[in-house]
Structure formats: structure tokens, C-alpha cells
């Protein structure tokens, strides 16, 4: 057995044996004809080391064996490997290097196997570098340090060749670069400092040059497509043979060197031209390239914003010009232009949103740019009407019967959606709400709404976007109508049950809850006895349903169907209550003067002029006027036109509504005052103590979702609240405000 009969192996003897094995290994590596190692050979070699390391002192040769191990490797390298490498260059050098490196790795593996006993105990005990590390270090110190410069240059020149379009051996490059990595033994230091740094510099110089060439030769789109091609190829390079850690750095250098120079190429006008000409491809390319360095997207986004703003402003101007071109205020034409304007704005929005989505891949910078651009030109207003009003009118046209738009249900939904989106950009959202409410009231009361479902759907959309507060009143209005209908049914039942209560005329009442609906002037119209009876009957009926509710009659909103007994035939006239009241006067007298009519009706001049105009100077002349002019003056006299006739048996006499615009704006301003007050009190109640400036800022912030408050107005309200003892100024610091409970 090995232990008992062991002879001490002396160093020279043992080493001699090992040397034979090592030489055999070297020969195999060099490709010389040698039989392969048998397992017996291996065992013998292993055993020799084993024995020499486990002998008793002073025959424990572990240290010497360790040193000899290193020496063998070094000797091999210096005598055989290095000379081979030094005489070669460029691609040959690279190939030789790879070959030698692979050989080296094999050698280390074999030697480690022979010497592995050392690895187990000796090395661990003395905390020495392992056999593998020693082997690697030898190669690094003797070979790598010598030639890495030359290798690097060879690699870089190959890369540049590939850039110029030549085919190169990518596998070779990968192998070479792997050496750089492996030599670091876990760290990337060698790769980075010896190779990567130089490679990046070379890339930079290369692309600088290219950029200058292309700028002078190529147009912007061509430049961009070439740039993108190069980008793809560089990416390709990283995936195929460069180390992955180089990826981001390389692309950074690439974009810096290539695109930095060309900053001039992309002046505002350049990109604007692209946008104008709708060069989607090119824009997408620009985005892709510039997105490598996020900082650079900003100028592109700015330019996009400017372009959109310019386009929007052009639309506004167009609309303004069209409006001022009209000599008279032909209502239909003005309306038409407003419609067109809103439509165009919607188209603009769609177009540029598509850009943001497709070209700019939904990048937040571009969304922001779009938003800001729209905010700028949408808040300017056109020909005296604010955009809020225009949008409300637009919706009105879509939602009312006989509006200028005839759309399918889907189209209506879609368009309303767009309006809601555009509303985001408008700062005076409360103004829109007020206008919309007014128009909604008209639609509901005069039964002009195309489709109840659409009305509700629009309100839902608005509610989703802007909250319950925004639409609560409007929803109340729609509900009121439904309730009213029910009410009417029970009223009719009541009438049929109490025959003595019957007023003799068919009569419908719509009950509106005051808070929800816009405020209407109620007037003391003198109505005829027949109508008075209707009113009384309903009042009685309503008392039976609820008490503690006061009914105020708004005659200006009513309609009346009245039969006109003309000489030729009887025609049914559909008129407003005011007009009906006026016509009924002629039941008792044939001629009446303006003054008489006014006195009998008990209405204001405005109302009288309007209604008489509609009856005598408009399309249907129910009354004859002396003198027969186109306008009403207080000295006119009116006569029933018994000769009037028309093809139809039933005609509607249109009474143009008062222009509500001024009133709406007044209402909104008033509401805003209250809103500001409420916001201030709310803020102060929670904070108790707050600086003046901060209060103003917070106020503006809170109210921002509905409208943009004027800072002066806010300040005024603060002062007002101070005088009303809601707040007080701190004695020591006048800029600090305290809340008074």
C-alpha cells in the first residue's frame, strides 16, 4: 500500500518526472504528434504531487512545487508564446492572440489538475492565489501587458472598417474582447481602461467627421435616415461583439458626436418645415435619435409647441377675419363661421395628437407641449366671443333639432368627446358651464333636443372629467323635465276628475326647480282671462301635491298654439306666450298703437319691440304696420292682417331670443366672487395662520380647475373678508393672516 512502502521522493527526482509530463502537455498544445494522456499518466502525475506535498519535513515540497508551477507557465510563455505574438500584427495578431489564449486556458486547466492537491490544502492554508489565478496572472502580466496596445488598435481599425461597409470577422473580435474581460478576473477594469476608452474616443472622432460631411451634403431627412442606420448598426455591434456594458456609453457618444454638431440643422424652421409637410417618417426618426439623450428632446418639443401655437393662432385669425368681413350681423353666417372654427380646432387637435402618439411615442414632453400650445391660442377668443362660449354653441348645434350639423349617433358621441377633451385647455371652464346650461335650458324647454340620451351622455362625460359639482345643476334640469312630465300626467287626471276645474284650454305646465335652472326674469304680463283660469287651476292642483312651495310663472318661456281666423283660411300659429297675448288683444280691437299695446301687456320696451317686429316685419305678416317700415318705433300703429295666408296650415312664428351673452358673463363673474370667498375661507380654516402671498397662491391653485382667478380680484376678496371679520392681519407681521372663527 502506498503509505507503508513509500519512498521519499526527492525534489529533483520528483520534479524531473513532472517536467516530462509538462513537456508532453506543451507538445500537445503546440500540435506536435504526441499520444494523449492516459489516465495512468494522470494518476502518476497527480500522485507525484500528492506525495511530494504530504511527505514529512523537510521533504514537504509544497512551496517549491507552487513556485515551479508558476515558473513552468512563465517559461512557456516567454519562450514560445510571446515570440509568436510579437512578430505579428493587425488581424493576424488578433488570431494568434485568440489561439494562444485558448491554449493557455487549456494548459492551466491541465496543470491545475495535476497540481490540484496544492489547491486543496497548501494554498488555502497560506491564503495564496489559486492555481488558476496564478495562471491567469502570468498570462496577463507577460502577454497582455505587452501587446494590449497593439491589439486594441487592431480591433478599433477593424471596427472602423466595418463602419465603412466592409465585412469583418465578428467572432474573432468577440473572442478578443472576451480576453479583455476575462483578464480582469471579475472586474471590468482592463476592458474599460485599455479598450473601451480608446474605442469610445475613436467612435466620437469618426462620427464627428461623418456629421460634418453629411451636414454639408445632405438634406435633413437624408441625414436623419443615415443617422438612424448608423444607430442600428452600432446597436448591432454591441449585441454581437462589444461587451454589453459598453452599450449605453457607446450610444451616448454616438448621439453626442453625430447629433450635437447638427444642432444647427434642426433650427426651428427646419423642423417646422417637416411638420408642415407632414413628414411623419422623418419626425419619428428624429424622435428616435434624439430620445437617446433626453435633454435634446426639449428643443424639439419646444419647436413642436411653437408650431402648434402658430397653427392655432392662424385658425383664430381666419375666424376673426371671416367674422369682421360680414357687414351686417347675419346671425346664421356668424354661427356658421363659429361652427367651422370649432370644427377646425378639433381637426387640429386630432392631427397633432396623432403626431404625439405616433411620431413621438406618447412622450410626456410632447403631451405637455401640445397642452401648452392649445392653452395659448384657445384662450384668446374669436371676434368678441370667448372660446368657452363657442364650444357651448357648438355643442348646442349638435344637440338641438334643426342644428346645422346633421350627424349620426356615433358621430355625435365622438364629437362630444372631443369637445370635452378640448375643454381641458380652456381656463374659463365655469364660463362654458354657464353658457352650456343656458343653452341646455332652451333646448329642454322648447323641446329642441335631438335626443335625451345624448344629453345625458354628454353630462356624464363632463361629470367624469370635471366632477359632480360641474354638472349637478344641469342634471337637475334634465331630471326636472322627467318629473314634470309625470306631474303633467297627474294634472290631467286631476282635470278629468274635477270637471268644474277645467279651464277650457289644453294646458301643459313644466315645473322647474329654481336652483337648477338659469335665472329668468319674470314679468308681470297681463294675460287674458282664459289664461288666468288655467293658472289658477294649476295652482290649486299643485297645492294638493305639495305645500310650502311657491310657484312663479315665467311667461317668457311659454309657447302657445293659437288659431288665426284669416279671410282665406284658418291657420294655426305657434307663438310664444308674449306673442299670443299681443295677438289676443286684436280680438277686441282692430287697430292698436304701440303705446296701447305696451300699456295693455305691461311689458318693457325691449320686449314689445321684439315681439311686434316678429309679427309685422318678419317672414309672416300677421299684423300690418303703419308706417310700413322695417323697424318698430313707438309711434307705429298695428292692425290685424286678415288677408294673410300661407300654403301651410300651421306655421311657427319665430321670436328671436334675447342675447344672453352679457348676462351670462355677469353671472359668472358674480359666482366667481363667491367661489373665491369660499376658497379663501376654506384654506384659512384649515391652516389658521398663513402668509399673504401663500394664501393668494393657494387660492389660485384650488380654483384653477374651474377658472383662472385674477390675482387682483383675489386680493380684493381677501381685503373684503378682513373687513367682514373673517380674517385679520397679525399685529406684528402684517403679511401674516389669521383665521377668525
Amino acid at each position, binding site marked *: 500500500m502506498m503509505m507503508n512502502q513509500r519512498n521519499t521522493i526527492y525534489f529533483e527526482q520528483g520534479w524531473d518526472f513532472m517536467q516530462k509530463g509538462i513537456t508532453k502537455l506543451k507538445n500537445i498544445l503546440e500540435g506536435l504528434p504526441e499520444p494523449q494522456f492516459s489516465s495512468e499518466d*494522470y494518476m502518476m502525475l497527480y500522485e507525484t504531487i500528492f506525495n511530494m506535498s*504530504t511527505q514529512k519535513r523537510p521533504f514537504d515540497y509544497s512551496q517549491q512545487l507552487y513556485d515551479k508551477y508558476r515558473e513552468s507557465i512563465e517559461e512557456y510563455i516567454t519562450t514560445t508564446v510571446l515570440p509568436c505574438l510579437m512578430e505579428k500584427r493587425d488581424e493576424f495578431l488578433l488570431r494568434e492572440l485568440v489561439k494562444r489564449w485558448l491554449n493557455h486556458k487549456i494548459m492551466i486547466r491541465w496543470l491545475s*489538475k495535476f497540481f490540484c492537491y496544492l489547491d486543496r490544502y497548501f494554498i488555502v492554508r497560506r491564503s495564496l492565489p489559486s492555481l488558476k489565478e496564478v495562471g491567469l496572472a502570468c498570462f496577463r502580466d507577460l502577454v497582455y501587458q505587452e501587446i494590449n496596445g497593439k491589439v486594441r488598435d487592431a480591433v478599433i481599425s477593424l471596427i472602423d472598417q466595418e463602419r465603412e461597409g466592409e465585412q469583418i470577422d465578428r467572432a474573432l473580435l468577440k473572442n478578443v474582447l472576451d480576453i479583455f474581460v476575462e483578464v480582469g478576473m471579475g472586474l471590468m477594469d482592463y476592458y474599460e481602461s485599455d479598450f473601451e476608452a480608446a474605442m469610445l474616443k475613436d467612435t466620437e472622432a469618426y462620427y464627428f467627421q461623418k456629421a460634418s460631411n453629411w451636414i454639408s451634403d445632405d438634406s435633413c431627412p437624408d441625414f436623419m435616415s443615415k443617422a438612424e442606420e448608423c444607430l442600428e448598426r452600432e446597436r448591432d455591434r454591441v449585441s454581437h461583439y462589444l461587451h454589453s456594458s459598453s452599450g449605453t456609453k457607446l450610444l451616448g457618444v454616438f448621439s453626442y458626436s453625430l447629433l450635437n454638431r447638427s444642432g444647427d440643422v434642426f433650427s426651428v424652421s427646419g423642423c417646422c418645415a417637416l411638420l408642415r409637410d407632414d413628414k411623419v417618417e422623418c419626425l419619428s426618426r428624429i424622435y428616435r435619435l434624439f430620445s437617446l439623450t433626453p435633454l435634446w428632446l426639449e428643443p424639439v418639443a419646444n419647436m413642436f409647441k411653437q408650431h402648434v401655437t402658430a397653427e392655432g393662432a392662424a385658425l383664430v385669425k381666419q375666424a376673426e377675419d371671416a367674422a369682421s368681413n360680414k357687414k351686417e350681423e347675419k346671425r346664421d353666417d356668424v354661427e356658421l363661421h363659429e361652427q367651422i372654427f370649432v370644427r377646425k380646432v378639433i381637426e387640429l387637435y386630432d392631427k397633432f395628437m396623432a403626431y404625439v402618439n405616433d411620431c413621438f411615442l406618447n412622450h410626456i414632453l410632447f403631451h405637455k407641449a401640445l397642452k401648452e400650445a392649445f392653452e395659448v391660442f384657445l384662450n384668446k377668443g374669436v371676434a368678441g366671443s370667448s372660446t368657452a362660449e363657442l364650444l357651448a354653441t357648438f355643442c348646442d348645434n349638435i344637440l338641438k333639432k334643426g342644428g346645422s350639423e346633421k350627424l349620426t349617433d356615433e358621430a355625435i358621441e365622438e364629437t362630444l368627446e372631443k369637445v370635452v377633451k378640448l375643454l381641458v385647455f380652456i381656463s374659463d371652464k365655469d364660463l362654458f358651464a354657464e353658457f352650456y346650461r343656458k343653452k341646455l335650458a332652451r333646448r329642454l324647454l322648447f323641446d329642441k333636443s335631438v335626443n335625451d340620451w345624448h344629453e345625458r351622455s354628454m353630462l356624464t362625460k363632463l361629470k367624469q372629467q370635471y366632477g359632480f359639482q360641474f354638472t349637478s345643476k344641469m342634471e337637475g334640469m334634465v331630471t326636472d323635465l322627467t318629473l314634470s312630465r309625470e306631474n303633467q300626467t297627474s294634472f290631467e287626471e286631476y282635470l278629468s276628475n274635477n270637471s268644474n276645474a277645467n279651464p277650457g284650454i289644453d294646458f301643459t305646465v313644466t315645473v322647474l326647480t329654481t336652483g337648477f335652472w338659469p335665472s329668468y326674469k319674470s314679468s308681470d304680463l297681463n294675460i287674458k282671462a282664459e289664461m288666468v283660469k288655467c293658472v289658477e287651476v294649476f295652482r290649486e292642483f299643485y297645492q294638493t301635491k305639495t305645500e310650502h312651495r311657491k310657484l312663479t310663472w315665467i311667461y317668457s318661456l311659454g309657447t302657445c298654439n293659437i288659431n288665426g281666423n284669416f279671410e282665406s283660411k284658418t291657420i294655426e300659429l305657434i307663438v310664444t306666450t308674449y306673442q299670443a297675448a299681443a295677438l289676443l288683444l286684436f280680438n277686441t280691437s282692430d287697430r292698436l298703437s304701440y303705446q296701447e299695446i305696451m300699456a295693455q301687456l305691461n311689458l318693457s320696451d325691449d320686449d314689445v319691440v321684439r315681439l311686434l317686429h316678429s309679427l309685422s316685419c318678419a317672414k309672416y305678416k300677421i299684423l300690418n304696420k303703419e308706417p310700413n317700415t322695417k323697424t318698430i318705433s313707438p309711434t307705429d300703429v298695428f292692425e290685424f292682417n286678415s288677408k294673410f295666408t300661407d300654403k301651410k296650415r300651421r306655421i311657427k312664428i319665430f321670436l328671436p331670443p334675447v342675447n344672453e351673452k352679457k348676462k351670462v358673463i355677469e353671472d359668472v363673474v358674480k359666482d366667481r366672487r363667491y367661489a373665491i370667498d369660499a376658497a379663501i375661507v376654506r384654506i384659512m380654516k384649515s391652516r389658521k395662520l398663513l402668509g399673504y402671498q401663500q394664501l393668494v397662491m393657494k387660492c389660485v391653485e384650488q380654483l384653477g380647475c374651474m377658472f383662472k382667478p385674477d390675482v387682483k380680484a383675489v386680493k380684493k376678496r381677501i381685503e373684503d373678508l378682513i373687513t367682514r371679520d373673517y380674517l385679520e392681519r397679525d399685529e406684528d407681521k402684517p403679511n401674516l393672516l389669521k383665521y377668525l372663527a
Partner: protein
Amino acid sequence: MKEDMVKLISAEGFEFVIDKKAAMVSQTIRNMLTSPGGFAETEHGEVTFPEISTTILEKICQYFYWSLQYASGKETEFHIEPELTLELMMAANYLHT
């Protein structure tokens, strides 16, 4: 020679045929069998141990199997005759087991 069997040959020429998996318990044997650019033996799957006696080699083979069993969770005893202990330890050291 079957795919996953190896032959261990003792000093006296005795051949022990065991699973490759069992043999791999020894690092030394594993190194030899998995070395690329190979030993002639890798195809044949034979290893000669001119310095290890049959008795010891037999015990070692038993150890290999026991080790595998122990690794898969079974708790069994591995009995060693006292006379063999020292030699067995030396062999274990040699084979890096």
C-alpha cells in the same frame, strides 16, 4: 461499455464497475472524466489505481453509493472496519472524496 458506468481497477487488477454518478463523488475521478481535450480513458471509462488495494477500493465504492444515498435524504450508517480506517482515510485524501 454502458454509457453511465465506469470501471475502477485496483492495484491487483480487480475491476469494479460502478455508476458514473457514484464515481463522480471523488473530485479526482471527476476531474479526470470531465476533462476535455481528453484522456484516452474518457471514452472507455476506465481508471486504473495502481496504488490502491482491492479491499480499500471496494470500500471506497461502497462509500460512493452511501454518499449518494445520504445526499438524497436517507439516513443510513456507513460501517468501517477499524483496520481499514487509516488506509481508507489516506485513499480518501488521495481521491479527494
